């Protein structure tokens, strides 16, 4: 069951993999990215007259007509369908309150648990302090609803969790999960990467776990544009 957890991310990330025709450049807030009525301003951009301007600092991606700006730093901003790793903060009458390291906390309703749970025995399924992988079902101003319905979601038992910069997560996962797959293969560990920047690792020995963590941190440390998989292969021969 553990290996399936990662497939959930891979499905989410697959659509981001197509980057062959994308032009990228670094932009600062207020900077004009392109000029022309044809372009479609997407995430992190705004239209100002003829121009499409960046509304935040990051990498602008120009893919055909659509423009977006990807942030390279900063906190996690929850979006629908993100797979996240969180920790149970509280058990309420209707479900579990989940700390997911973002501005608003997540809520996992009782109905979302995969089997029937008696209200008196909720802590036998998820107790305070337990770590889970969950998917964001909806983002509303009142809070974030989570679900466990999905491939490989659920409680993460054993192992340990650490944090990386959330905007680096797509690079850790890699094209269709190639990067995290490589690290898993080389270290023999189970790894789950949440979009909120939490990474869960469980391996056969603690040495393997530490090696996997170093590998993940190596990937997260630098924003290499391409050839990262090759660099990683090289890293594994050295470490």
């Amino acid at each position, binding site marked *: 069951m553990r290996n399936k957890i990662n497939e959930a991310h891979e499905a989410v990330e697959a659509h981001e993999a197509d980057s062959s025709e994308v032009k990228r450049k*670094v932009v600062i807030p207020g900077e004009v990215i392109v000029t022309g009525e044809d372009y479609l301003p997407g995430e992190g951009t705004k239209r100002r007259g003829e121009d499409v301007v960046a509304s*935040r600092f990051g990498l602008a991606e120009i893919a055909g007509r659509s423009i977006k700006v990807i942030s390279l*730093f900063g906190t996690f901003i929850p979006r629908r369908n993100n797979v996240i790793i969180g920790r149970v903060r509280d058990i309420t009458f209707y479900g579990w309150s989940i700390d997911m390291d973002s*501005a608003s906390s997540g809520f996992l309703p009782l109905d979302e648990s995969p089997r029937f749970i008696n209200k008196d025995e909720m802590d036998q399924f998820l107790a305070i302090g337990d770590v889970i992988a969950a998917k964001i079902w909806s983002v509303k101003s009142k809070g974030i609803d989570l679900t466990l319905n999905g491939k490989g979601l659920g409680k993460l038992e054993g192992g340990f969790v650490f944090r990386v910069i959330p905007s680096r997560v797509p690079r850790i996962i890699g094209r269709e999960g190639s990067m995290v797959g490589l690290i898993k293969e080389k270290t023999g560990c189970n790894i789950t990467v949440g979009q909120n920047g939490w990474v869960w690792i469980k391996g056969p020995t603690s040495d393997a776990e530490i090696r996997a963590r170093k590998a993940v941190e190596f990937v997260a440390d630098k*924003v290499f544009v391409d050839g990262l998989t090759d660099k990683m292969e090289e890293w594994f021969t050295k470490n």
Partner: protein
Amino acid sequence: MAKRSDGRKADELRPMMAKVGVVPNADGSAMFAFGNTIAIAAVYGPRLLHPQHMQDPATGILRCNYDLLSFSVSDRKKPGPNRRAQEISKVTEWALMPVLDLKEFPNTVIDVQIYIIQADAGTRTAGINAASLALAHAGIPMKDLVCSVACGKLDKDVVVDLTKEEEDYHEGEGATDFAIAKVANYDEYSLLQLDGKIQPEVLKQVVEISNKACKEIYEVQKKALKAIVEQEMGGKAK
């Protein structure tokens, strides 16, 4: 014209330095220096706001804290907040708020900590410049950067970016200190503070001279932001 003590021209700024990403544990951070004045800003959030009664369900809020550290001046300053720090924190907040769009983050706060580690006049303006960079670094939606500079008078002559020595120039018309913050690519000003006396005609001159200075500051800020990405990309930025 009275000669400036460090030999600068009237519209010449002190050497500026800006660096982004100086506080590893913050969500965004930056350092900005005007000569001997050095400010460090760190941004945390957006995160859930406590106390709860301050939460705004319509928008996120900005909370700035300016701190002149005790070792930043030659006579040790008593540490901790005081009336002056409170005022500067508030005006910094007001100076930055017009460029931010926090509607996406209801009930949250963005905390900006500004530390002056070395002071030689113009600390609030250096703090605003650093905070503007740090907010951008944290990936917060902004319409533009904010640039800030202080102008003043040596008797009748308008000069930009005063040092402490110039700020205390009491001859002739007396000491004047005029702090301005400008939204970089707009004709908008988010901070105007005057300490001293100034003639209405001279005010125009002050605005002109600070517009020119703000352009220079903007270029320095821009360079600092682009540099951090290049650095993180291992020199492979496209």
